[in-house]
């Protein structure tokens, strides 16, 4: 039966590529990249064989791969929802059949294959006897299973929180904080241990902590087997296997709940505010309009942008997919800032370079998630298209979307850097960081506007997962788009960074940063509206496709 799920998934992947050259191109690019990267990663790891750091590195690679699998879908790309479990709801499938089948389908794809090869690289580095190779292959397989089940269980669990009623938003924030705090705690523990062991022992210090996590225990089992300590090795494997089973169980239990219950909040919200949900293009939403009411006749573009922004803000709150995006962003920021050690001593003596990277990152990330503005509108985009007969109107729509994004991101950044300022008892670097992050936001929003009209794709709204990617081949293209935006943003930010290198970091960036960012965002909108207005029908057709 599991085989049926695997072939079903393969058929769906093939179907998704039918008649879509862009998706096919994305898949080919990813495939070629994988073909080069896989042997390279394997060889790099295998080259560690016999070195002292091999065991420690192995533990870290196993752990890092698992953590990335578990957390990355929450921040970017989503999980592979090619096989949407909701479509199986009517079939008489036993819990066990369903679990095994969905698991097998989740293992089918490019990502799992690449991951497995990388994990085998660790086996090549650490194992040195036939017995330990056998244990190693088993450990790698179990770790892959751990990766897949952890990512599914987490996205399904978070989706449940995202889709639930308001009360659970506290739980959601708590979850995000928990993840961030865990990372910070790990960071601090690592520093403490590295300090005891002296410099250059970071790998062993980190591995000393990571080895007690399930993936770490699996990796450690390979070393145990290599040393001939087979009972210890089997204990490690057993611990990994138990973790996999527990995660599988949690995933399917959460899934079962997700598929037989309905989204309470959105139904309620729809009913309560049917008026507010009306097409933004033809109606100024009262909440945003109250301040505007004092101004007699704002220019058409301004009122339109304001209406779109109000609609976007409502959607940010009500659409699980958007909440998922912001949640991921917030967690990512907390993790990076804390993991970079900025919260403690790093910032006080930070050079311009550290500041630049740390501050640009949040802004660019916030911008990247706007790279598919119209995809989230989906088929409803026709409401705007029907009310658009000039490129300027599209520009106003984009301005509204940018405004909504800034209204969420800027207060968040401000709070973040204010907290940082309090933590390090100074103003200069946090202020500069805030200015820089807003500049990065503006710059990436400008690029994202252009990407939105050139490379739109539909975003499925699935019951089981708010983190679904755009489907087969789409994930690769989305990843390439994000990478492209990152590179372009870095290029466009370079004048500001050059200025930062010559002048001292300081509050002047609070003026220069937002001004520069706003200018680039404005230019991006101007270009995007010109390009997009001509291909509005194609844009609508692309984002309305059922995935």
């Amino acid at each position, binding site marked *: 039966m599991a085989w049926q799920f695997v072939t*079903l998934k393969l*058929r769906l992947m093939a179907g998704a590529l039918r008649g879509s050259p862009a998706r096919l191109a994305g898949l080919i690019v990813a495939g070629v990249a994988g073909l080069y990267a896989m042997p390279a990663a394997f060889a790099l790891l295998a080259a560690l064989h016999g070195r002292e750091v091999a065991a420690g590195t192995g533990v870290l690679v196993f752990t890092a791969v698992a953590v990335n699998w578990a957390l990355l879908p929450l921040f970017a790309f989503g999980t592979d929802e090619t096989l949407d479990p909701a479509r199986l709801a009517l079939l008489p499938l036993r819990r066990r059949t369903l679990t095994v089948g969905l698991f097998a389908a989740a293992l089918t794809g490019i990502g799992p294959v690449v991951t497995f090869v990388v994990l085998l690289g660790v086996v090549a580095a650490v194992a040195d006897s036939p017995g330990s190779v056998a244990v190693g292959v088993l450990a790698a397989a179990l770790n892959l299973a751990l990766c897949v089940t952890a990512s599914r269980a987490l996205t399904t669990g978070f989706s449940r929180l995202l889709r639930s009623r308001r009360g659970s938003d506290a739980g959601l924030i708590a979850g995000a904080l928990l993840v961030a705090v865990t990372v910070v705690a790990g960071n601090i523990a690592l520093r403490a241990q590295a300090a005891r062991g002296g410099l250059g022992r970071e790998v062993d210090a980190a591995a000393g902590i990571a080895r007690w996590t399930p993936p770490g225990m699996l990796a450690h089992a390979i070393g145990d087997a290599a040393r001939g300590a087979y009972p210890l090795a089997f204990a490690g494997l057993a611990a990994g296997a138990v973790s996999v089973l527990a995660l599988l169980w949690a995933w399917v239990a959460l899934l079962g709940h997700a598929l*037989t219950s309905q989204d309470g909040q959105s139904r309620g919200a729809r009913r309560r505010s049917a008026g507010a949900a009306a097409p933004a293009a033809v109606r100024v939403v009262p909440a945003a309009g109250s301040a505007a009411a004092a101004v007699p006749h704002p220019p058409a573009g301004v009122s339109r942008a304001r209406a779109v922004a109000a609609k976007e803000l409502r959607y940010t709150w009500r659409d699980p997919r958007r909440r998922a995006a912001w949640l991921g962003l917030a967690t990512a920021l907390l993790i990076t800032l804390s993991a970079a050690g900025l919260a403690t001593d790093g910032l006080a003596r930070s050079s311009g370079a550290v500041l630049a990277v740390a501050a640009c990152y949040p802004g660019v990330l916030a911008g990247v998630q706007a790279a598919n503005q119209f995809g989230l509108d989906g088929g409803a985009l026709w409401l705007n298209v029907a009310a658009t007969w000039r490129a300027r109107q599209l520009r106003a729509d984009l301005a509204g979307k940018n405004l909504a994004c800034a209204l969420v991101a800027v207060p968040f950044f401000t709070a973040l850097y204010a907290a940082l300022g309090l933590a390090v008892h100074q103003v200069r670097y946090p202020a500069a960081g805030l200015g820089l992050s807003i500049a990065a936001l503006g710059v990436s929003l400008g690029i994202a506007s252009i990407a939105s009209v050139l490379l739109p794709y539909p975003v499925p709204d699935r019951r089981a997962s708010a983190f679904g990617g755009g489907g087969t081949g789409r994930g690769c293209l989305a990843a390439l788009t994000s990478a492209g935006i990152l590179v372009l943003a870095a290029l466009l930010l370079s004048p500001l960074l050059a200025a930062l290198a010559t002048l001292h970091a300081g509050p002047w960036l609070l003026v220069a940063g937002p001004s520069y960012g706003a200018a680039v965002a404005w230019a991006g909108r101007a270009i995007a509206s010109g390009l997009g207005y001509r291909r509005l029908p194609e844009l609508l057709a692309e984002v309305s496709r059922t995935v």
Partner: protein
Amino acid sequence: MACSDRTAPPAVAARGLCKRFGSRIAAAGVTLLVPAGSFCGLVGPNGAGKTTTLSMMTGLLRPDAGTVEIAGRDVWRDPVGVKAVIGVLPEGLRLFERLSGRELLGYLGRLRGMPAAEVDARADELLAVLDLARDARTLVVDYSAGMRKKIALAAALLHNPRVLFLDEPFEGVDPVSAQAIRAVLDAYTASGSTVIFSSHVLELVESLCDFVAVMSGGQILTFGTLAQVCQGRPLQQAFLSIVGAPAQQHGRLTWLGNSSR
């Protein structure tokens, strides 16, 4: 499949089904006993709770309270057993869009554990009868609304269910496709199987069904044979008097139309 006699347990026995979404009550104690072998129409205004009720009966939506039994099996205690004997054409039609029509049927049959040869033979026959044979290799995502209804009906019938649930099977379907669906349903019920379907098209309910349930505000207002419910009136009239039509509103919408321009 054996024809059921009237002493057999009801094909569908829903008792006290309740469901609440936030502050809105979608089903407020729905009780419905549908005899085996009947063709039962579920009618009611928009928002009456028809889809919610059908979803709870078919194991797609967990009720807050109440029980559902299909042919004597509890839907929520024995979901596997129940899903094996029911066919559902749900609202929203969530299908694997990226399979062709024939692939879709093939997979659904295999996932139900049916022999592959049997699945393929039945799939071809269903596709032919429903006039989908020419589009058997087209992806479902490229199907029209009527074709989607037809392929979903084929999926619901593939395993020869004992009870068939149809949520608005004729909505958005052209007359030609509607005729094809009707012919299949006629053949299906002639064998003594049970059908429950919801619809707004009262003429259709009147001509197809032998039992009618009228729903409003999350409750069954009336249930009985067509003659019992209609009491000599056309179903349209009987329905409006049971549900209660709103009074005509005069003096509204005066801005609408040519005269005010």
